Each structure stands twice: as C-alpha cells, then as structure tokens.
C-alpha cells in the first residue's frame, strides 16, 4: 500500500535518513521501533510531506507521491498524528474532529468514546492549552480516526502521557486497524509495538531489522537499548 524506497535526507551534511526502505500493508499495524535520534520523526515528516527527501521515493497505491504537498497526501488518504500535537485557540473538539465534513455527530461521539473521552464532557472543549498532554494526544488520535485514513502515521502516541491515557491510546490504535486503516506506529517503547502485526527497527536512518513483534522486541532490547550510538548503525549486521 505504501512503499518507501531508498529514502535519503541529509541535514547540515549529516545523513538523517540513510537509504531507508519500508513497506506498510493495508489494514496492518506496522511498528517502527528506534531510540531517540534514530530518524523516526524525520521519516514521519518525509512520508507526510512536511519535508522532502534528497533521494529515494515514496509510493502510495502505486503512485509516486514523493513531491506531493501535505494536503495532496491527506486527500489521498494519508495523515499524521504529531508527537507534540498543535493546540488551537477557539477551535473546539467537535469542530476539530469534523474537519472531515462527511462525519456525523454520532460518529464523532463514537471516536471520542474509543479514546476514553466522554463526548458530553469533551465535545465543547477547546483544543487548546487547557487540555492535558494525555487528553490532547487522545483527541489527536480521535481526529485521525475521524479522517478514516488509508494510512495513519502515529509519531510516538504513547510518549509523555499519563497512565490513564495509555490504554485508551492503545485501544484507539487497534480500532484504527479494525476500521481498515494501515498504521505506522512510531515509538521507542517495546510495550507499545506489541499491538503491531510487524515491527521494523530503525537506527541511524536505516531499517536494521524487521520481523514479528515479540522477536523484534527482544532483539531491540539486546542490541539497541544499551547502545547510545547515533550516527552510523552500531549493529554489525546493519
């Protein structure tokens, strides 16, 4: 469904994404596991069109979208949930979720329930600084669900949130897959990728291993968690 081929990004002479290949399949959750500085967010930005690569290509449903704008990609069915979602003064949650104009109010309410936010309490609240970090991330996930995307890129949806929010976030991710969206779940937590169908491990802008979640989590624990290497992949098989 979405293929990333030999993608490259260099910033100030330093390779950030270094010939990365990745394939995301329809209605599957693909975990992308990596330590801080591995290139996870840079990859998310490239796929969504926030930034453009120096080389390689991004193919979505057999179309080369490497140079498409954010809006064009969103209209094709891609969307992104940011690690630190933006806050909007004067825009309430009902309006934020109904940016997808085809959505009924009852669907909006269902999506809020999915992420554990009672609609009666939250629909009228602004998507601003008065929401806690966990609430804001849950709203972000609900807004991605509301888009009914073909591919959802979730950049660390599990980071920096309270313990109450975490199970609701994970529920939202599995619901996304059930409604037919492919999910790229970006995280540095082995716990989070347990919901994935497949996991790739990223290091220094490259995929250095891929496979079933359980196997990859153990491999990540053994090879990456004690490795502070940022730059060239330290794993000899990379």
């Amino acid at each position, binding site marked *: 469904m979405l293929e990333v081929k030999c993608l490259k990004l260099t910033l100030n002479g330093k390779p950030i994404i270094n010939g990365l290949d990745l394939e995301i399949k329809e209605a599957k959750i693909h975990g992308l596991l990596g330590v801080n500085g591995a290139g996870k967010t840079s990859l998310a930005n490239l796929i969504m069109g926030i930034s453009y690569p120096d080389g390689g290509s991004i193919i979505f449903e057999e179309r080369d979208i490497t140079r498409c704008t954010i809006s064009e990609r969103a209209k094709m069915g891609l*969307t992104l949930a940011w690690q630190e979602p933006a806050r909007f003064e004067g825009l309430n949650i009902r309006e934020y979720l109904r940016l997808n104009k085809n959505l009924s109010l009852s669907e909006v309410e269902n999506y809020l329930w999915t992420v554990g936010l009672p609609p009666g309490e939250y629909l009228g609240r602004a998507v601003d600084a008065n929401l806690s970090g966990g609430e804001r991330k849950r709203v972000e996930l609900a807004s991605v669900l509301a888009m009914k995307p073909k591919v959802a890129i979730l950049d660390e949806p599990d980071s920096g949130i309270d313990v109450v929010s975490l199970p609701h976030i994970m529920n939202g991710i599995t619901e996304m897959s059930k409604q037919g969206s492919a999910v790229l779940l970006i995280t540095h937590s082995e716990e989070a990728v347990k919901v994935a169908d497949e996991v790739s491990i990223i290091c220094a802008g490259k995929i250095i291993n891929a496979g079933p979640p359980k196997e990859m989590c153990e491999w990540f624990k053994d090879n990456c968690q004690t490795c502070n290497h940022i730059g060239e992949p330290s794993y000899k098989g990379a």
Partner: protein
Amino acid sequence: MLVVKEYESLLEAYGRAGGNLDALGNKEVGNLVIHENKVLSVNEAEGIKVETQETQNGVNIHLLVEEGAKIKYPVHLCFGVLPEEGLQEIALKVEAQDNSEVNVIAHCIFPNAVDVIHKMDADIKIGDNARFSYHETHYHGESGGIKVIPKAKIKVGKRGVWESTFSLIEGSVGMLDYDFEIFGDEKSINELLVKVFGKKEDDIRIVEKIHLDGKEARGLAKSRLVLTDNARAVVRGETYGNAPFARGHVDCLEIVNGDGVIARAIPLVYVNDKQAKVTHEAAIGSVDKKQMQTLMARGLNEEEAVDVIVKGILR
C-alpha cells in the same frame, strides 16, 4: 412616521448583523435602540432604570442596575448610523449597584458608512459584589469610511466583577481608537478582551489598562488581532499591581497575514507592592506553521487552514 421607518430599517440591519430581534420585542428583556441621535426604543426590565437625553450629535444615557437585582435576561443595546455620513456621540453612565448582576449585549451597526464617526464615552461604576458583563459587537460595511472611538473608565468595587469583550471582525474596521481603563478594588475580577480583524487600510489603536488597586484584585488584559493587506495596529496592554496579592496578566496575540501589515504590541507591567505579581505575553507573527501542517494533514488546503485558525483566534 420617519422614526418608525428608521426603527424598522435599524432592526432589519440589526437582524442581518446577528442581533436577537425577539429580545427587542420581549417586554421582559431590557433594551435600548438608538439611531444617530434619536432614541427609537427603550424597555426597562425589572431592576433596571434607563434615562436618555438626546443631544445635538448623540444621546446621553444613564443605565442603573438596582441594588441586589439579578437581571434574568441579557439587556440588549443597539446603536447605529445607517446613512453614509454621520456623527454619533454616546455618553454612557452606568451604575451597577451593590450585589447586582447583569449581562449587557451591545450591537453597533454601521453598514453603509462612508464618512461616519461613532464615539462612546463611558463612565462605569460597578458596586461591591456586583457582576457586570458587557459584550460589544460591531458590524461595519466594506468601505472602511468609519471612525470608532470607544473610551471607558470603569471602577469595580470590592469582590465586584467586570468582564467585557469588544469584537470588530465583520466588515472593514476603518479607524479604531479603543481605550478602556479599569480600577479594581479588593478581590475584584477585571477582564478586558478585544478581538479585531484588520484589513485593507484599517488603522487600529487599542489601549487596555487595568489598575489592581485592592488587595487580591485580579486582572486580565487580552487582545486578539488578525491583520491582512495593509492594516496597521498598535496594542498597549498595561496592568498595574498596586496592592498585596494582586494578580494581573497581559496577553496579546497579533497574527500578521499580509505584506503591507504593520503590527506593534507594547505591554507594560508595573508593580509597586512586593506581594503583587503581574505577567505578560505578547506574540506577533504569521500563522503558526505546526497548526497549518496539522490542518493540512487533515485534508484542508492552505487557504482553508488559515481560515480555521483565524476564526478560532477571533472567536
């Protein structure tokens, strides 16, 4: 006959501007309708006294909210000038007596202005433990041929509450010279909010001053401006912490979305009591990039994304 016609014309403009026509016809709802220097309608709801005196270029108004009166429905004020040219000077004296509560909604309508001046000088006294909400919304035409000069001095008594919004986002601003100054006594709450959408050659000057004179008085001077084309704006937000445990904040946001825009913000925070605290934040800049990217990732194009952000800020 002429007055009836003026009244009907103004009501029609009032309705088009989003005013509540049912409220003006309801005997239980206090209202006052003024066109140029003519008082077209007055209704005193229970607990409210309104005295008016027509002058050469406007109307002197004395609005009294009686002690202990809790006014059930919002009081509606409608001020307008329908011809292309005119001068309207409103001298407003407000006295909200102790323990009273009222919500006042004012609509100021100048849909055809080519050379119109609308001035308001207000002298407002909010009693102890009284609560007064004042929300003024302007509806202008597109010509920009209007000068709006609202000025108010507001004294808020002990544990009194003053909260006001001034909103000018429909049509061209023209020239705006807004100057509100509050003096808050002990444990009073004093809040000013101004929202303006400047376009074309609009010239906007805003002064919000809050003096926190009583112990534990609180104040917020907030402004939200969006400026496009060649609009110019200067916002002065001043808060003075003059008493122990007074807390104040100045919050100014100006979104610049045009090559010819000039925007200035001048926050002033002043404290002369060691136990008072006043803070400020002022931001001037283009539309936030991350907000734009977020909305575009939800399928909006650039123009639609700007529109959503701007409407939110000015809401």
